[in-house]
């Protein structure tokens, strides 16, 4: 048992940290928000940092690193609440590497690694809410391959992506397909989300599609679990910075002639935030480390992690605003945007109640990390 980061991981953290500090300040983020919430140049910079290739197998031009390295990178991006969805690269990579044919891997993984192709998961449907097994999208075999007809909501960077991984019904079960955004019959309408990042509604009408796997539900569950672990890591970074901003403010802000950090009731709140941060970090590690387990254990573990993170994120975000007072609800203050990010992330990949249901449903007689 060992929770130390390797030297390589530490170097990766330092590199991403430096880039966030120097290259992704609040002003740049604000400009990207004003321009729609996604900047391809940032994506290219992430690629240059080696992040889009981080988990791509070496055989496909990647660095062949694992979930812990992805976690390290995402923690640092979360610390800077970077809008561009690096997690999608990890999701696409894992899904293709685990489920796609060699041909599809050879075609797509090098392009994902290089940053040339932004491939995102397009799975959200109106009736599904947080369920992965509800899918009305339809696929059919064609002469050239397959064609997909679907309406997918809230697709991350959906009008900026190069291709989508799309679940759709094929012969009575869910399969996964790759569809290029430029393909015939694909239309994406973009908009900003709560945290100012970008999403889109994507309409597929008989769009030409490449089959990734007919075992689509298993692959989609894997995608969601990578998504949860990514969300956890990113959130830990965002919460760490939230706590730092909050305590800094408490020490500087005076009321009744003294810093508000001197009020015991507020001090205890800060202690409770520290508690939530460390519980969340613990469960983020747990999530990352369990990503390689067999599906049953993996799913249970990732749901447990999301329950903890959901609670922590809500508490951290709300208390940060409260401890800041008025400034905490202004658009011009950076801390407010951390609150928005933490709010939104709770509802990504299933909220706290949803995953509590999953944990409850999968509960066994034993208990604990190794149970």
């Amino acid at each position: 048992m060992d929770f130390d980061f390797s030297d390589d991981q530490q170097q990766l953290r330092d590199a991403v940290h430096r880039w966030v500090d120097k290259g992704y300040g609040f002003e740049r983020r604000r400009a990207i928000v004003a321009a729609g919430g996604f900047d391809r140049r940032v994506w290219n910079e992430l690629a240059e940092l080696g992040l889009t290739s981080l988990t791509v197998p070496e055989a496909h031009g990647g660095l062949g690193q694992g979930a812990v390295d992805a976690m390290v990178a995402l923690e640092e991006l979360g610390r800077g609440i970077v809008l561009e969805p690096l997690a999608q690269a990890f999701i696409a990579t894992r899904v293709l590497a685990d489920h796609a044919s060699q041909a599809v891997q050879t075609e797509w993984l090098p392009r994902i690694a290089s940053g040339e192709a932004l491939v995102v998961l397009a799975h959200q449907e109106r009736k599904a809410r947080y369920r992965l097994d509800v899918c009305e999208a339809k696929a059919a075999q064609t002469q050239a391959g397959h064609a997909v007809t679907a309406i997918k909501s809230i697709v991350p960077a959906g009008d900026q992506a190069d291709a989508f991984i799309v679940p759709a019904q094929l012969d009575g079960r869910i399969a996964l397909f790759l569809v290029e955004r430029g393909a015939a019959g694909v239309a994406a309408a973009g908009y900003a989300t709560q945290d100012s990042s970008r999403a889109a509604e994507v309409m597929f009408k008989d769009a030409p599609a490449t089959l990734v796997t007919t075992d689509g539900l298993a692959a989609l569950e894997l995608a969601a679990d990578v998504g949860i672990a990514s969300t956890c890591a990113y959130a830990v970074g965002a919460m760490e910075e939230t706590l730092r901003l909050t305590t800094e403010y408490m020490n500087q802000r005076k009321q009744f002639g003294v810093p508000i950090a001197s009020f015991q009731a507020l001090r205890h709140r800060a202690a409770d935030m520290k508690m939530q941060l460390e519980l969340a970090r613990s469960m983020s590690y747990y999530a990352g480390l369990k990503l390689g387990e067999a599906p049953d254990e993996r799913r249970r573990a990732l749901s447990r992690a999301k329950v903890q993170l959901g609670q922590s994120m809500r508490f951290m975000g709300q208390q940060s605003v409260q401890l800041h007072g008025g400034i905490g609800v202004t658009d011009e203050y950076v801390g407010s945007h951390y609150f928005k990010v933490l709010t939104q992330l709770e509802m990504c990949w299933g909220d706290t109640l949803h995953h509590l249901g999953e944990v409850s449903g999968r509960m066994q007689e034993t208990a604990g990390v190794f149970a």
Partner: protein
Amino acid sequence: MDLAFTPEEQAFRAEVREWVRSHLPPQIAHKVHNALRLTREDMQGWAKILGKKGWLAYGWPKQFGGPGWNAVQKHLFEEECALAGAPRIIPFGPVMVAPVIMAFGTPEQQKRFLPGIASGEVWWSQGYSEPGAGSDLASVKTRAERVGDKYIVNGQKTWTTLGQYGDWMFNLVRTSTEGKPQTGISFLLLDMKSPGVTVRPIKLLDGECEVNEVFFDNVEVPADQLIGEENKGWTYAKHLLSHERTNIADVNRAKRELERLKRIAKTEGLWDDLRFRDQIALLEVDVVALEMLVLRVLSLEKSGKNPLDIAGLLKIRGSEIQQRYAELMMLAAGPFSLPFIEEAMEAGWQGNFPGGEVANAPLASSYFNLRKTTIYGGSNEVQRNIVAQTVLG
């Protein structure tokens, strides 16, 4: 002890309900029921309709042109307005500054200012908070210097709610730096169109500019706009804070919003989801308990008692409940609360809202906006200090 309203109270409620429902413009009610954004015209339009009826000044005694209602009648009026989907009455004029003018203003000031407040013609703003002084009002730094028959005002206010619409503003200003901080404060009425007044809206998390910074650069204020005596402003401000007791819990709005939450849960397929439904049920209990608390305070006030110890709880609990229903509405929509499309928060938007339910458009915005409720009006931490004082000394 009796939970039922008297026949007279019931008749009163029926009259108010009839009138409100027939005079509230449906397009405004639609916005309120769906948390769509209200314009200045919506807010002031309704105020003027009430003003014409004499009900904008619903809390005023008869001698100043109010209806002279008792605490229960005021509550019933507020409840009927809330349930009908009326916008909240902007309180700065009729609820906040008017009682101060009535209690401490000269007859001339009363004659000059009260009619415009009662009619809804004049929009008032509040100049209390300053940068660096949120819940700590006594540390006011904005200076007002007496020069002849004028005050020259310099300084800055902040968090001025809807100050961008304000015609007039009541201010706490420092006229002396001697003695305790509280003793050198004066209460000054100020025409916001005066030269030297600059209003800068502050954009908030929800994308709107509900509050403002207001800068005073050598603003000349005629001395007859001082309320009462110089350096006694703290007394008047405290008088003001002791008003507007029960409606601060906003329980009537909570009841309306609880019904909206149930509608959203149904649309989102959660009405039969036991886990989510339980959350609503728990909130329903909270709302009923808050309403009972409000009714107890009202009943005691009607009997001439001053239930200070329990009235102090209303703001804390009311604000927590406001935040909770906003949170649950957002969580009900879940992924479909993510799209943050400001145009869709306006009435009449014709676009396609992601996921299809345009009713979900303002949910995150409301959630963000209502974080203010535990901060403003004396943060809930300050309120807990006050409650603790009542039980511990």
